[in-house]
């Protein structure tokens, strides 16, 4: 059997199932979960490019998400420019910002890099909180206009939001897949595995990491725009928060890193889980929902350390073998 064809078929299968689901259940909350699922699965895919492929752990993707959200919102709020253009502008701006912040961050390795991205995101968040032009801490209620494709506002149904989310998700996943199977993907993975070996293979590591960061940032920003248009309200605490960054990290790790299926699986589990534990248990005011949520995360991490994907492709049975020994051999 041709492995490559099989993989393509699986991905298409998943994509079709996702597309059909909201039409099988008209429940508004279910569709909401689907929209959020797609947004976060897409964010996970975008993040995966820089962290899963290139091995540069980013704890600061909320920064790009927020920039995407704010760019389109400001353009629409202040100048009445369609969020579609805002989405593009946001992606461009996020790309530019990613280049600027990558410069100081890429000098750092490993955890130092991860904390640096976190620091950058927190600084950007504080700038937005204090920036009067973007309404600072008070946030912006996006003016509600008649629903239309141009205004990217839909009040009577969630299906258009779902479809936009789907298309963005599709673009992101396909981009990730294209990268994975071509030169850039190989180069990124080489950088992840060994910086020095990559250099010796003629790979300009800084440049490729930068490319990965740019692509990742641009894609992340587009979801920011959609998110803002979907909620119709944004403030810095909502889009720039560490929680958004961590959610992206968590679901991708939960699903399995460095693979385009990981974020999809992670999001398919994490998003409904957090939604439904809250829906069914959140009303008690005792934090039971998050307790259970936390416990489940611990459970998955402990019993499937390679992510859910690891469970599925567990070839080597003794997974808790001695890592040291392998590295040393």
């Amino acid at each position, binding site marked *: 059997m041709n492995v490559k064809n099989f993989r393509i078929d699986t991905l298409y299968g998943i994509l079709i199932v996702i597309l059909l689901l909201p039409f099988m259940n008209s429940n508004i909350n279910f569709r909401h979960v689907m929209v959020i699922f797609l947004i976060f699965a897409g964010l996970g895919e975008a993040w995966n490019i820089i962290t899963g492929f290139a091995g540069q752990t980013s704890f600061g993707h909320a920064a790009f998400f927020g920039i995407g959200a704010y760019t389109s919102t400001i353009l629409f709020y202040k100048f009445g420019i369609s969020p579609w253009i805002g989405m593009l502008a946001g992606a461009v701006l996020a790309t530019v910002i990613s280049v600027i912040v990558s410069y100081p961050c890429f000098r750092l390795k490993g955890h130092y890099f991860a904390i640096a991205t976190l620091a950058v995101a927190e600084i950007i968040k504080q700038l937005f909180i204090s920036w009067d032009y973007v309404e600072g801490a008070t946030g912006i209620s996006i003016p509600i206009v008649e629903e239309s494709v141009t205004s990217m506002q839909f009040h009577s149904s969630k299906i258009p939001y779902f479809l936009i989310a789907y298309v963005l998700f599709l673009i992101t996943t396909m981009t990730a897949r294209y990268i994975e*199977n*071509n*030169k850039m993907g*190989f*180069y990124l*993975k*080489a950088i*992840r*595995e*060994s910086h*020095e*070996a*990559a*250099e*010796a*293979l*003629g*790979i*300009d*590591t800084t440049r490729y990491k930068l490319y990965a960061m740019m692509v990742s940032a641009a894609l992340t920003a587009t979801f920011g725009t959609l998110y803002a248009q979907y909620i119709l309200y944004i403030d810095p605490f909502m889009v720039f928060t560490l929680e958004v960054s961590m959610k992206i990290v968590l679901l991708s790790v939960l699903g399995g890193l*460095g693979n385009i299926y990981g974020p999809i699986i992670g999001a398919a589990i994490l998003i409904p889980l957090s939604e439904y534990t809250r829906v069914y248990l959140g009303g008690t005011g005792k934090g039971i929902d998050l307790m259970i949520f936390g416990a489940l995360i611990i459970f998955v991490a402990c019993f499937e350390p390679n992510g859910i994907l690891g469970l599925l492709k567990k070839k080597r049975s003794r997974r808790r073998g001695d890592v040291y020994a*392998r590295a040393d*051999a």
Partner: protein
Amino acid sequence: MFMQEPMLEVQNVTMKFGSLIANEDVSFSVHKGEIVSLIGPNGAGKTTLFNCITGFYRPYAGRIYFQGRDITGRPPHEITAMGLTRTFQIVKPLKEMTVKENVLTGAFLRASSRKEAEKIAEEVLEMTSLSGKKDMPAGSLTIADKKRLEIARALATGPKMVMLDEAMAGLNQTEIKEAMELCLNLKNRGITLLIVEHIMEAIMPISDRVVVLNAGKKIADASPEEVTSNEEVIKAYLGERYHAKSKKSEHGV
């Protein structure tokens, strides 16, 4: 048979780490098509010199020319792109990737498409006898195969010159023989080689010239025969036992 065209020229390279001098005023050159070996006791500064040449370190003083172009302090990837690449003493396989993917990664340097890269990779795998293991994860190879993979990956970048850092350490006799053949094979394909090695039995027969480092300084630069009889070299490095053994094998084989 030497074409007297210098491929690599190392001029007065000095490298320091703090107060520790790893290389002191080292000069030598490698001509096109040659196999040159760099030997010396542990801590003599061979790997440091390698790192200086390939751009991983910036030398403290001195210049390095590759094909007449000054490459001193250029980043490693640019040097590789010019056609000078290396392997590592401590192998650095891209563990999560398969053998073929490892080689593909190197092949992308010259290939413009995936297809072309695949072609180069297949060729190189064939040449290094790794074809049979191409779908194995690189992390699970034996040490010998990992060393072979290092070489294969370097070759995939389409180099004019390859620098091998202890590519034979830890191989058994048969494997060393294969490695020696591979080196000669590469030489026949016009690839210049600079080899750091401990295994005298392996490098003496294939080297055109041997450069000996001791305590960061060059103490000899001559043909294998001359080097093995150089008193200073023997004292510093080979030890009496080798001296005796090499004499024995001269008679024995």
